[in-house]
Structures are given as C-alpha cells and as structure tokens.
C-alpha cells in the first residue's frame, strides 16, 4: 500500500517534471525563437537600438523643455546662468568619462554602468520637478507634458538598460539607488525665483546628462558593430 503510493507519486512527478522546469525558469526569456512562454524575446542589437532611440528622444524633449522653461520663466539676464548651473549639477560627483579619449579607454561594461548610474540618479529629481512645476501659476501645459513624458521615459530607459546589462554582461539586476535625494527633501518652500532657478538648473543639468547618456549609448553601439574604428 505504501509502496503503491510512493510509486504513484513518483509517476506523477515524472509526468509533471517538465512543468516544474518551466515554473522554475526565470521570467525573462532567453533568446529562444518560438518559445511558448508568455514573454517575448528580443535580440541584443534590437534592444540596444531601442535604448538609443529612447535616449535620443529623451534628450530632444529635455532640450525643448529647457528652452521652453527659459523663455517662460527666466528673465533674459538669467539665461546666462546655464553655464553656471553646471557647477551645481547633482551628478557632478559621479565618476564619468568626459572626453572621447577617456571613453576610448573604458570598457563596455563601465560604459553601460555609467549610463545606468545616470539614469537612476535622475529618476527621482524628475519626479520632484513635476511637483514643483505644478506650483507655478502659469506653467504651460506643453512644458508640463514634456517633463512628465521625460520622467516616464526615463523609467523605461532604466529598465531597458538593466536588461541590456543582463544580456551583454550577464550580470544581475541592480537596484535603483536613491541615495542622492538629500537635495530635495527640504521642507523649505523656496521663493519663486529660487525655485525657478533651481528648476532651470535641474533642467539644464538633466539636458546635459541626457546628451551624455545618448552619446555613451551610441558609442557602445559603435563598439558592438565595428570594434576597430570606434572610440
């Protein structure tokens, strides 16, 4: 009787072991064509192209937002402060290559990680920007929509970069760090101008970093396709 039960269970286990395998498989798919699981697989090249496209769009929209913001809120004399604001960018502490020659010396892995760091460090500030801009009296809807859009796209960009890292570098997932949030947790209600300046600084810094992200990713793609002529 007991042996019968054991035999029965073992038979069931034998029958069901393929399903166990599928259950234990990771959710993200390997590159298998025609797999019956629910997720769709994408090739590495396509993913990289999509990530680059994202970054390009983000940069363009951020640039437009920045210009809009400048026109709307910044008095003419203050438009010179864009260069000054570079000093106060939140990401200045991040170790980043800053020239073509420097980029030429770092590896793909480091390039990807740099991008990821940038992306992850800007998610929170952009969310904050949304809240502050809502406080403006006559913020145009277009500006608000653009910033909202950028914020959303940045999150998907982060996801794409994470998958890309996993595919290219076979590394595990990195958690989003929220360590750079000290700047925005003051309860002080800044003055309008200050707020404006801060927002403008934020936008211009973000624009710069978006350009950086885009350039990094494009160089990475160049390295993927043609290793010898790329920086």
């Amino acid at each position, binding site marked *: 009787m007991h042996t019968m039960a054991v035999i029965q269970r073992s038979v069931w286990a034998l029958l069901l072991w393929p399903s166990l395998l599928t259950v234990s498989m990771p959710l993200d798919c390997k590159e298998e064509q025609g797999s019956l699981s629910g997720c769709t697989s994408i090739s590495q090249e396509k993913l990289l192209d999509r990530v680059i496209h994202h970054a390009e769009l983000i940069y363009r929209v951020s640039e437009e937002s920045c210009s809009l913001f400048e026109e709307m809120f910044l008095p003419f*004399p203050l438009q*010179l402060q864009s260069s000054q604001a570079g000093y106060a960018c939140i990401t200045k502490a991040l170790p980043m290559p*800053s020239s073509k*020659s420097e980029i030429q010396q770092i590896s793909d892995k480091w390039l990807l990680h740099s991008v990821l760091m940038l992306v992850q460090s800007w998610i929170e500030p952009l969310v904050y920007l949304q809240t502050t801009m809502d406080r403006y009296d006559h913020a145009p809807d277009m500006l608000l929509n653009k910033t909202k859009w950028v914020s959303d796209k940045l999150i998907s960009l982060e996801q794409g970069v994470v998958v890309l890292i996993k595919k290219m570098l076979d590394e595990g997932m990195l958690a989003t760090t929220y360590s750079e949030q000290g700047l925005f947790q003051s309860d002080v209600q*800044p003055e309008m101008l*200050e707020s404006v300046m801060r927002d403008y600084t934020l936008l211009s810094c973000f624009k710069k970093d978006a*350009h950086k992200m885009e350039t990094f990713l494009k*160089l990475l793609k160049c390295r993927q396709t043609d290793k010898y002529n790329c920086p």
Partner: protein
Amino acid sequence: MADSSPSANLLLLLLISSLYWLFTPGSAFLIDRDHNTSSAPLEPHFTECISREQETFRCWWSPGSYHNLSSPGALRVFYLKKDSPTSEWKECPEYIHSNRECFFDVNHTSVWIPYCMQLRGENVTYFNEDDCFTVENIVRPDPPVSLSWTLLNISPSGLSYDVMVNWEPPPSADVDAGWMRIEYEIQYRERNTTNWEALEMQPHTQQTIYGLHIGKDYEVHIRCRMVAFTKFGEFSDSIFIEVTEIPTKESTIPFTLVLVLGIVGILILIMLIVITQQHRLMMVLLPPVPAPKIKGIDSELLKKGKLDELNFILTGGGMGGLPTYAPDFYQDEPWVEFIEVDGEDGDSGEREDNRASDTQRLLGLPHPVSHHMNMGCSNAISFPDDDSGRASCYNPDLPEQDTLMLMATLLPGQPEEEEASFDVEERAPASSERSLVQAQTGGPQTWVNTDFYAQVSNVMPSGGVVLSPGQQLRIQESTSATEEETQKGKEDEDSKETEEQKQKELQFQLLVVDPEGSGYTTESNVRQISTPPSSGEGYQTIHPQPVETKPAATMEDNQSPYILPDSPQSQFFSPVADYTVVQELDSHHSLLLNPPPNQSPPPCLPQHPLKAPMPVGYITPDLLGNLSP
C-alpha cells in the same frame, strides 16, 4: 516662515547682484550680442570659443579698447575646468598669438564639464572673465562637403523641375561612430537675389528641392549643427543649379505616330488585297471539287431531271461532237480499243423503238434515231463542252476524230444514281447520230461475267463493228483493219458507214466507258446487233449483257431486232478471249488474229469486279486474270 524669508531675500539679492555682474560686456559672446557701444571702454574679452568636432576647441580674445594690451603676451588666458570642487585656474595650453587664439587640444578638452575662461593682464586680475560654457554647447560643425545635384524630373508644362542635392558630412565630425549627431539645413536662392530660401532641417545627407524654374540660375549652400543644439556651423561652398530648355521628346512622338500609321496602312493594304483577290484566294485556298461530269456535257444536265437535254446532246443534237478526250488519254495503251458507234438510222420505228426501249432500258442510251438530226457535223455530235470550250462542230481527221467512242474500261462499283436514273429514264432522245453509246448497267450485276475489252471481230457493212469475245476470230475487212489500227483511238464513223455490216455470230462484249473520263466507267456486256445490211448505218446495239434474269429478260424480249448469235446464257460459259494479237494481214486486208489463248472460264468473274479496285479506264489482262478465281 519668518526665518526663511530673510535668507531667501539675501539669496535673491545675491543672485541679482551676480546677474548684474554677469551682465557685462565681457560675456557678450555667450549671448551673441553686439557690444559696439562706446559708452564704456571695452575691456579685453573673449570674442568666441568654438569647438568644431566636440573634441577640441579654441577661444579668441580681443584686447578691446585697451590697445596697449594687444601685443602678444600682454594678456594671458586662464581657464577653469569645473570637474571637481578643488579645480584651479590653469593657463591656456596652447597659444596662437597671431590669431589671439587659445587652442585646447584633445587632452585638455572635456565634454559635459563647464569651462570658464579668464583674461589676465600683467598684474591685473580684474579682467576676470567668467565666460563659462560646456563644450557641447559651443560646437559649430564644419560645413558639409561634396555637394552635388541631379535632375529628378521636369513638370509636364516644361516650366519647373525638381532637383536632388547630395552631400557628405563634414570629415571632422565623427558622425559614423555616433559621437556627434548632425542635422543639415539647405538654403537656395536665385542668383543675384538676396533672400535665401531655407528648407527644413533634417539629418540625412540628401534633400530634394522642388519647384525650381527652368532657365533660372540657382545657388545652393548647406550648413549643419548638432541635433537639438543651437549653434550652426559655417555655410558650405555654393553650388549652382541651372536647367535650360530641354529638347522635348517630340522626336519620340512622331516616331510612334509613324509606326502606328504604318501598321494601319499595311493592314488596310492586306484587306484590299484580300477583298480584290477574293476569288483567286478562294481558288487557292479552297479548290473546287470537281463535280462529276461528262466532258462536253454541261454538268447541269447531269442533275436530276435533265436527262432529255443530256440525251439530246449525247446523241448529237447541238453543235458538235464530243472532244476526243479518251483517245488522247489512251494513246499509249494499245490494248485498249476504242469503239465508235455511229448513231444508227432509224431502221424501223419498231426497231428503233425497241432499240430505244432496249437501250433506254438497259443501257440508257439516247434514242437511236440518228438521221433526224444530221446536223452539219456528219461525223460526230459535238455539243457544248464547258470544259474544252469547243462548242462548235468540227470535222477532225478521220483517225483522230473526236466523235463518240466507246472506251473499254472497267470500273466496278460505280453505278451512280444519276446515271442509272437517266439511263432508265431516257426514252426519246432526239439524237441523229449517236456517237456515244452509253451502256449503262442496270446494276452491278451486269458487270458480272463480262470481259473488259472486246475485240473487233467483224465489221458490218453498215459500218458497225462486230465485237467478239475472243473465241472466234473473224477476219475483218479493211475497215476492221483500220479499226484495229486505230486501237489506240477510236473508229470513225466514216469507216463505219462504208463498211458492210457482217454477220456477227459471236456475241461480243462491248464495254462502254464514259469518254468524259471523270471517274466512272460502265462496263457492260453488249450484244452487238448485227444489223442487216440494209441498215447501212452504223449501229449501236449496246445493251448490257444480262447476267441476272432481269436484264436477260429484257433482252430476250427484244430479240427480234437483235441478232443473237447465241443464247445469252450460253455465252457466259464460253471462254472469252479478251483480245488477240494480229498475226498478219491476209490478201483481203483482213487481219489474221491469233487464236485466243485458252482462258479459264471466269465463273466467278461476276463477283470480282465489284470487289477489286480497278484502275480507271481499263484493266490489264493480268488483272483480269486476277479476277477470275
């Protein structure tokens, strides 16, 4: 709240002061403003800092109004690279004093990091310029190179055209690696005008210009900038576009027109040819099937219901005689005997009637009255012959007289309906001289037991010919000799008339062939009627040798006018010689013929002619032998 407001105000004040400080002429280059005001002395300042490829950059300065500082080395350039909080001012890595330029090479250039520039004098540091920038913001790409244009199309009106302009990105910009993203702007204008037309920016290296006018000169140049940035590079060198009047494609239009017209003309010509030569074409394409006809007789007469006319013609009514078709045809066949039978005078009405009835019934011959219609042509009856066109009476020479003849042919199995019908129906032919005797068989059965050729055994004084089946040879008179001589041909009626009819003992077989030769022949056994000398005329006594009872019966009924040497029946069983060879001529110019060779009686002959296909016209003895079993 109260605590923050003073600090906020302080901050605001600081900000405004710094703004004012910034808002100095020294920083004019960053806002691209013209500061040619003479209100304040112009301090030494930087005129421009430009990067061409985002890897190096240069800055130019000007001493301003302080001309004593214009000498090289009087002013020094210092920069601050704000990549760390502890960065310091550094001097320009490379001076180009001739241009008053400071060049930052690749090692000293960092993108995305703010730079601040400063001019310092001897011991004046208050010429502190705080012109700060990031390198990507000062990038002005080089102009594109290798401009070219191609004509796309010309409008149907021939007044405007479209042009495709191609170019290459600036070689200094590393576009392929993705280091820079560049977009281009094309501008064009008519030559000697001042306003440029600008097309929309786009990142591709080609663009179409639409709507240029023919005959006008156009000038085109291109500039580029980094995507989503503000500073354009220099314009490229101009290219000139000019499209003059293009020779229209009229040369092709008349060509196609000519082609179409030519084809239509050829078609019309073909149609005309077909229509005009329709008959000839029909003759070529659909040759007419020869209808059965007798040479010299209108084919119309052969149709049903026209036997009277035919009989008339056949018996000599009309104008001439039949053409000598058959003799010519059989010239080469010595063993074919042609027998001419003159139209016989009406000896007696009864006899004529009987004869007529006999012939009409048995042979379907026209009325044997010959003297009635003795036309000018004594020899023969010539009748209109559609084929030969000889509708007139003619008297050919005796040997070649184209009178009626009886051709010995053999053609089994062709008792055409019309022949039978007309033979039967012929009753009162009004032919004076019957030149053609047609022995019409009542049916296939009449051919039974017949020889195909008859040899002349005797010539009657009246001119008739006694044909013998070959069993008995008769020495013939001269006429017969001449007749023999004219084996190839026929016997003329003259000879016949002069000859005496002789007693005929043996029955003969007379085969009649349609001289027309159109395909049918009749064969029949005929019995020559040995006309009494008093007849004097040619005779014709052709009626089918009856094999069956029917014709035999008719024969026997009319025995009186006929001389039957033997009973018809007995004739069948006697061996019949087809022909004999003339051995010699005797003193009387009669032919001595060879004895007939023994022949096997052809009891089965009747059946054979029907089955075996015979050549048209005659049969050789060999074939005849084949017929017998």
